[in-house]
């Protein structure tokens, strides 16, 4: 009996090893199916491919990209806008830990772009604690902290380390089959970036037109946020986030982005690059901006409480 059992176990392990190593599957395609595929003309084939897309990725502006956008808009650094480090003790649910891993990642990115070395290191340490509490300690390990300390004066390396830790957090949560938690981290980071940007305007449309422009176009990112969250809407924490984001959408509905031409592409094959351009007009009233300013602060303060 034990010999039979042993043989079966070996067989199952070999089978599993075969599938995981070669990643190949036998094709089961009938002649009829082949005929159908051949008969589809190119454009229809393309549309069919779009319709059959297996996987959809919603890529939000990451905390690092948002920090870059804020800096390039000519805004400055304000330490008072960061979520206090001591708040970490408040976060003891998956929702709060995930949101604030995103928030602290945004604070870390913002600090690093403005060469605030000690602040960057402090927020990395807090991010590490939250990652550990979320069960993804390997995303930000001791080696990461050591590398950061050794390269604190090299902004390029610091940004590289920050982007790697953010990717790791997202990747390990996905690996653990916890994509809803990964989405919460992304939303926390996005809201914190929007909070910092709006606060830097002092609620006025006149302080920094470039920054206002960046904030207005976050209307597009909000659509991406809502699509991302909709993928996990059965999760109660995600439902809560959808409600909050919809409150933001009501305000953004009054922000007008009117595209007046199709996107034109100018490709330079020698440089392996393409320039994308179109024409668009935007409009936001003072009143709408004031509402947006207040709503973003309300949501963000709820996240960090």
């Amino acid at each position, binding site marked *: 009996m034990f010999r039979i059992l042993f043989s079966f176990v070996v067989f*199952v392990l070999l089978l599993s090893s075969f599938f995981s190593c070669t990643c*190949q599957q036998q094709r089961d395609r009938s002649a009829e199916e082949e005929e159908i595929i051949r008969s589809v003309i190119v454009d229809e084939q393309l549309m069919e491919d779009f319709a059959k897309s297996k996987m*959809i990725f919603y890529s939000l502006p990451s905390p690092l990209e948002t920090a*870059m956008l804020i800096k*390039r*808009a000519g805004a400055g650094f304000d330490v008072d806008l960061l979520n206090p480090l001591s708040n970490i003790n408040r976060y003891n649910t998956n929702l709060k830990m995930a949101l604030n891993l995103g928030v602290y990642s945004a604070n870390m990115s913002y600090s690093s772009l403005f060469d605030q070395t000690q602040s960057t290191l402090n927020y990395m340490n807090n991010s590490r604690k939250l990652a550990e509490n979320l069960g993804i300690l390997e995303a930000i390990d001791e080696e990461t902290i050591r590398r950061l300390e050794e390269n604190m004066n090299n902004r390029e390396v610091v940004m590289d380390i920050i982007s*790697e830790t953010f*990717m790791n957090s997202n*990747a390990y949560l996905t*690996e653990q089959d916890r994509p809803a938690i990964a989405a919460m981290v992304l939303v926390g980071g996005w809201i914190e970036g929007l909070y910092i940007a709006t606060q830097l305007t002092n609620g006025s449309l006149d302080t920094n037109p470039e920054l206002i422009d960046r904030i207005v176009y976050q209307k597009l990112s909000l659509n991406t946020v809502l699509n991302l969250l909709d993928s996990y809407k059965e999760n109660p924490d995600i439902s809560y986030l959808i409600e909050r984001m919809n409150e933001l959408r009501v305000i953004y509905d009054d922000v007008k982005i009117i595209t007046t031409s199709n996107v034109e592409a100018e490709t330079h094959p020698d440089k392996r690059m393409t320039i994308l351009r179109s024409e668009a007009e935007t409009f936001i009233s003072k009143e709408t901006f004031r509402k947006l300013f207040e709503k973003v602060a309300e949501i963000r303060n709820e996240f960090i409480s």
Partner: protein
Amino acid sequence: MVISRLIRCLVLIVAFWSGVEVTAQCISFARNIARPQLEPFTHDGNFNATYMEEGESAELYKTFFEGEEYRLVVSAVESLPELHIQVLDEHRHVVFDNKNYENAQVWDFTAETTGTMIVFVRVPDRGMETITGGCVALLFGVKSSGGSRRR
């Protein structure tokens, strides 16, 4: 009875670990193979990678911001054929197709206006006896040393 339970447990454990292994391989692939191709751009930190088979496709939605320069890297394991990549605008008009550029898997984009674009990736079906699958990663880098924005 005991043996039957043992066998069921073993099957479940093997099935679980096979899935975990594929995902873990994707993280390692994205980090070690795809990410370095973004240089000298800075990776934005987003992780977009999944297991795909021949004939399958994926889409990525991303907002390109005015004045920013981006590098797109779409990378697949060696066993997969070169990927078909298209970039589409919000109305699904194709603005870039790598078939016109020797199936390039790395391309830079400069946005002169802000807009949401769709990156469409398809693993070509080679029509062979077996269908090959493996990790595919779609990563974006942002130019970190750029100057002020164009208006």
